[in-house]
């Protein structure tokens, strides 16, 4: 049973801004965030997943995370970083340094298991408490903490230099 338009509009009013922010964080692009928000709700309209979901908000955000990483996979590796600002000239995005590292972190997140990725996104990008994440994922808080710790470890490992490789590139200044 597809959700009725009124219900979708209510969900849009309640969670649309949060979902748009999430898409912006996961794509680093304003145009993509806008496209994906529309794509999400059109997909919801066409499927019965939301009608069967016990926790509509959790279903929305988890579907959004999947959609954003699907988008990232489809674009890799030809799309440039932040070619279009995700927000206006005075946005926080413009003030951020190290956009490339943000992109690297997002790429590394994509290499994690789906549950690990979801936990890190909900914890760090959505600022949710462990208990809230546990409820959304249908797990215990203890399990979520474990998942988070493991996923964070994997993410950190992805940025460790390989054996024998210097941690920072050698320059004339660092060379002894």
């Amino acid at each position, binding site marked *: 049973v597809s959700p009725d338009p009124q219900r979708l*509009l209510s969900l*849009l009013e309640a969670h649309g801004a949060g979902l748009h*922010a999430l898409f912006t964080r996961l794509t680093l692009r304003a145009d993509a965030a806008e*496209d994906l928000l529309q794509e999400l709700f059109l997909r919801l309209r066409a499927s019965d997943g939301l009608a069967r979901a016990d926790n509509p908000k959790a279903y929305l955000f988890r579907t959004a995370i999947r959609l954003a990483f699907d988008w990232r996979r489809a674009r890799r590796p030809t799309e440039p970083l932040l070619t279009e600002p995700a927000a206006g000239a005075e946005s926080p*995005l413009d003030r951020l340094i190290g956009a490339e590292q943000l992109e690297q972190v997002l790429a590394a997140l994509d290499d994690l298991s789906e549950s690990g990725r979801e936990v890190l996104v909900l914890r*760090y990008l959505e600022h949710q408490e462990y208990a809230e994440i546990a409820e959304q994922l249908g797990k215990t808080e203890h399990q979520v903490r474990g998942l988070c710790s493991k996923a964070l470890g994997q993410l950190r490992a992805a940025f460790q230099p390989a054996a024998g490789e210097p941690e920072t590139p050698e320059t004339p200044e660092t060379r002894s």
Partner: protein
Amino acid sequence: MTDDEVTRRLEQLGELEPTPEATGRALDRVRHALTESTQPVSVASSPRRRYLMRFVVPSTAALVLLGGAALFLLTATPAPTLADVVKAAEKYKLVKYKQTQTTDTKDLVGTPTESTVYADLKAPRTRTETPNPIPDFADEVVISVQDGTKKLWLMTNSRRKTAWLANMPEGYQGFLVGLREFQQKKGVIQVKDKLGGVETVKYRLEEGDRTDSLWVDAKTLLPVRYELQLDGGPNDIIRNKIVWTDFEWDPELPKGFKGIDALFDTTPPKGYELDDQTKKDKK
């Protein structure tokens, strides 16, 4: 990147916030999509496909504003007719606007590709400038000049220094002729609408796999936005959407152009390798 840096980058991602304007625009778009009777699907295309699809744009854009059966007014109060819009546009010589095209395929979400278009309002001539959005190719601009008077179509690539010249395909009409034809079509739905705080009249026509929507400023009667949506296409393309915005009427000519004719010149630039399809056509 150290462990702390990884955590810090995650936290930085969480601090990113779109502007309220961007969020408002995105929410409006979804509200509109959910309440529309049709079901537009936004899906993505690869940068390469989008770039290639630009070459489809000139012909489709030239054929815009065509339509179907009996004018149907939804509003009770008198509103400007498309004939009034044509009259308002006819007062000008040149119009410049931004063209955004999104090509959607079955599997990929589309990302807009932008061009700057100049349309001659006294002759069927159009110039479309499309820069390559990929940074490594930032110096690449594809310029397409269509001249319906000379029946010539020139396309140049600034990076490759190549020029392609061909006879104009049948059906090219230019901006005003397209508008006049839209005026004569039947089945156009006319409603009041508000666009960016401006009172507008929206004309909408659905016909087969295409939908045309035109917004005109209720005061000046000049077009302020135009959308063409074509559903379906080859190679898994499920939708092609072209949007015209940022209209400027009688704008300043770009630097280096002394007159309107220079803007629509179909002479291949010196030093460019020419592929002259007109000679092949004659043979």
